């Protein structure tokens, strides 16, 4: 049974009125992280928001470094304060030291999809190409925001659109109107990126929420909250929380992060799809059904031992979960799994409606469940039959 839905009482106002509500810091994380602008390669504001949140809510979480690509590395040491060998970056063989704590890496990507300016025409309209998997045909009518806060609206050339078979807009038909009268007065420069405009909206009395970038600010919020809970009561394992860059354009941050922090278990936290929509393709994931434990997706088959471990942690903690078999798409875990000589990897997902579109809807109970499940991993995999320290 889903304790979230079982105990939730009708509510109309704010998230704080939800019975069995998620923690206030988690909701604060969701609000501040979704407010930050950050298409792939431009994650600085998101990273700053995460650092500020950790400073305010979880000051004992170590902020270890920011790497060359912009990945943010954080750490919660194992109980007793022992680090898992020397700090990462030291020779890898430090991890063979006896009795070191297990090292768990949890990755949440900070970036969101968007567009990037390729040309400003003589009349001040901006041409663009895609940053990540934006649904190009459905960009018509979307509002986008540039780093400066400037907003514009995307439309498609009417004549070209009419001439095209099926009237589906393609990238070369699209332009962004930022209200500029001509090229010289246009504040957008070639190379400027934009993300969906929007904001966080509470729905269903605070049980659900919509934002333009739940992918993956919801995952960032879950990871930050998990780190806060882990730091408050450390477990037998050392937990590295890595907030990664450039996931939407090819899992790029996870590749260097995985090289940097050799780990025994790697877990990504990201959004996934939802099948509980009118006319949706069959997909056994529903909002309110709990955090999703990934079995497989388009880029990875999760380690069966990790899947079983996460499911047991959920059962022990009375955390609602649902299995995830996603036909397409993938997460940072796909890159982490293939790091070095290979790492047992899995993913915890937050079912999301309308992913990669301007209004992405999640269930707050699922978000809470994801945070709780990630926090529970700090107990470590030491008792698991499949677990052997990586070397």
């Amino acid at each position, binding site marked *: 049974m889903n304790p979230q839905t079982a105990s939730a009482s009708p509510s109309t106002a704010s998230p704080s009125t939800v019975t069995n509500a998620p923690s206030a810091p988690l909701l604060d994380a969701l609000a501040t992280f979704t407010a930050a602008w950050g298409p*792939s*390669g*431009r994650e600085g504001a998101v*990273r700053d928001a995460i*650092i*500020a949140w*950790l*400073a305010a809510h979880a*000051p*004992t*979480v*170590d*902020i*270890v*470094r*920011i*790497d*060359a*690509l*912009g*990945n*943010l590395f954080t*750490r919660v040491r194992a109980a007793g304060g022992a*680090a898992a060998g*020397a*700090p990462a*970056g*030291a020779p890898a063989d430090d991890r063979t030291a006896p009795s070191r704590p297990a090292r768990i890496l949890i990755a949440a990507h900070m970036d969101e999809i968007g567009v*990037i*300016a*390729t*040309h400003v*025409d*003589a*009349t001040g309209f901006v*041409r663009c*190409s895609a*940053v990540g998997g934006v649904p190009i045909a459905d960009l018509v009518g979307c509002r986008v925001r540039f780093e400066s806060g400037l907003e514009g609206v995307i439309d498609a050339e009417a004549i070209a659109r009419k001439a095209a078979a099926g009237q589906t807009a393609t990238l*070369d038909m699209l*332009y962004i109107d930022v209200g500029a009268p001509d090229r010289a007065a246009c504040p957008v*420069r*070639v*190379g400027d*990126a934009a993300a969906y405009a929007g904001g966080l909206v509470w729905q269903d009395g605070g049980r659900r929420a919509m934002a333009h970038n739940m992918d993956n600010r919801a995952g960032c919020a879950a990871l930050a909250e998990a780190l806060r809970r882990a730091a408050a009561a450390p477990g037998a394992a050392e937990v590295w929380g890595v907030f990664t860059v*450039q996931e939407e*354009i090819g899992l*790029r941050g996870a*590749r*260097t992060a995985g*090289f*940097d922090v050799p780990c025994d278990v790697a877990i990504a936290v990201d959004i996934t799809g939802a099948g509980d929509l009118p006319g949706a393709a069959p997909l056994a994931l529903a909002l309110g059904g709990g955090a999703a434990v990934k079995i497989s997706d388009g880029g990875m088959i999760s380690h069966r031992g990790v899947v079983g471990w996460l499911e047991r942690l959920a059962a022990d903690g009375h955390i609602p979960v649902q299995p995830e078999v996603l036909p397409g798409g993938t997460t940072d875990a796909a890159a982490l799994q293939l790091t070095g000589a290979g790492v047992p990897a899995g993913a915890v997902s937050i079912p999301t409606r309308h992913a990669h579109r301007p209004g992405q809807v999640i269930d707050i109970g699922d978000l809470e469940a994801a945070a709780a499940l990630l926090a529970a991993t700090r107990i470590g995999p030491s008792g698991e039959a499949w677990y052997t320290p990586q070397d």
Partner: protein
Amino acid sequence: MSGRNVNDVESALPYGGDGLDWALLAALSDARGVSGDEGRVRDIVAAAVAPHVDELWTDAIGNLYARKRGERVAAVATTVRRGVGGPDAGANEPGSPAARSSEPAVPPLMVCAHLDEVGLMVVDVDGDGMARLAAVGGVLGAAVVGQRVRIGADGVVGVVGLPPAHATTDAVRARLPALEELRIDLGVTTRDAALALVQPGDGAVWDTATVDLGPTLLGKAMDDRAGCWALAMLLRSRYPMDIVGVFSVQEEAGTRGAGPAAHRLAPSAAFVLECGTTDDTPKDRDDTPVMRVGDGPAVTVMDSSMVADPRLVRHLVAAAESAAIRHQIRAPKGGGTDGGKIHLARRGVPTAVVSAPCRYLHGPQALVSKHDLAGMVALVRAALESWSPDIVAPIPFDRPGSPHSLNREVAP
């Protein structure tokens, strides 16, 4: 290189461009070297840079490395000149095995250009003596129809036949030929005679000699011999810090050489010197170009393979502005470079790309501007001369009021 008299067409090149070795660029573009067969090009590069660099070596897959020590260390270091690797490439790398296994104490800057070019490969020979072919890298069938090519180590001449106009049906005219439909005519009539000339696996490239058009050059392999040439020009100067020029292999076959090179060098930052498509010929829509020939070297913000490090982009633009070098921002569209592999090496390498704009690349006649090329050398030189390690210093993350307020890695 044949060509017009530059002075008939235009006045002296900017940025000291008249002093650059344009004959070297012509020789490089004319050299044959499809992906995986870069030896002839590598030898030309090695001979050109050897007098100017402190170490020269190759690795197991054929990347050529040229180390130019920084001003401070060069004064005391003994100059080491190494042979250029052939079949035993990789055996002559400097340093002891122990030194090789660890990252250098002061990582160098990596400046990379790729040796290889797109072209064709012979995959079989038919009974009538015609060679079947496959593309190496991105080559359109239309780019080889009617073209004379040179094949293999000996440069055997062949032609990809073009039927005469009066014998061509409307249906044939209406579509571009697919590469797979084409064959190379070697001028012989039997399979045995053909196999005496070429073997499956032989690379083939257009038989094009570079021509000097005055302000521009026309040649087959400006992508990326222009980058190799610019890197060779840059290696004539000494800079404040160690530079390792990497002439990489197999870029056109999937950016395969540069990743291992970046893993080996563990550089503190990397600059990729490329030759990029422009899409700048006149058209009826005001929605392009990617970049323009003549508008100067282009700085990449993002392409399919990489988001350029914004700190390096800012440094390059500032260097261009302070030295009054005309430059442009490449429109962030598709296409990838060696930077895509370099920036993901190890813990990540801050990487930027500077491109020479090029019309008609991946074809028999690619056009580049000498102004742009002189500007590219001047721009990268200015960026290297004004380099500071602080440019790529770790991003600070002060947390005011926190006991964990740090600008460095947490101690163990």
